[in-house]
């Protein structure tokens, strides 16, 4: 796998769009199969995008944008919304803590491990949250030196 030029994918995730959670992540994973042959890498990246997509669908007032940037052996993901923001980021990063509505939980989401899961698999993780919106930026690298340690 040599260097590849920069490519971008953009998706809009609607608020309370529980029925379609994971559909964007599947599209991203399928698209990236042409770029990255490693199933392990695609799985890690796919899980991270799935979690970011689920957060936008479950926890936002007006939905949000999911931007995927592919450059060299890395993928950068930016998930951005317009509120209501995460009141306590430390709590949100505590496994099992969830503010997901009952409807989301009935569909199998809102287990309170999403952000942790991204943090676990991503090579870089940045999160800023204000009442007017949350921005999550993470990268998953396919570099040999940063393979996930099982």
């Amino acid at each position: 796998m040599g260097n590849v030029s920069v490519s971008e994918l953009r998706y809009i995730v609607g608020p309370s769009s529980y029925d379609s959670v994971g559909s964007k992540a599947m599209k991203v994973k399928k698209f990236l199969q042409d770029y990255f042959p490693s199933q392990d890498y695609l799985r890690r990246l796919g899980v991270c995008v799935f979690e970011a997509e689920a957060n936008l669908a479950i926890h936002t007032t007006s939905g949000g944008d999911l931007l995927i940037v592919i450059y060299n052996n890395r993928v950068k993901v930016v998930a951005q919304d317009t509120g209501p923001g995460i009141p306590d980021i430390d709590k949100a990063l505590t496994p099992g803590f969830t503010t997901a509505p009952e409807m989301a939980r009935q569909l199998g989401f809102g287990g309170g491990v999403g952000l942790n899961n991204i943090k676990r698999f991503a090579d870089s993780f940045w999160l800023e949250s204000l009442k007017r919106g949350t921005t999550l930026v993470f990268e998953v690298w396919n570099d040999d030196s940063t393979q996930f340690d099982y």
Partner: protein
Amino acid sequence: MKINEICKTVDAEILQSKGRLHIDIHTAFAADLMSDTLFIIMRDEDPLLLITGVTNLSVVRTASILDIPAVMIVRGKNVPPETIQLAEQNEIVLLRSKHIMFVVCGLLYKAGIQGVSWEM
């Protein structure tokens, strides 16, 4: 354990057979929370059976993201046609047992299927 042996062990039917039907499965995970399922650690060399009572599209999407080759629906639940269709498109074998999740897990564990790695 082959898929047909798994079916015999838990008295399951095959709802969707397109996919890796002849795969040898040694590990499993059981949950109704797809969030928790996304937290498991998968390895290429260790294909997994997902045991769940969730029948909506999210179960197939989760399986697809994690490269899970087979999903066992428990409690004899009705599976919507769109779920079966998405499983077919993504080549995920879909099975259904009338037993409750506890019994399915117990029977498969007794037959030698191990739990997947879990670290929170």
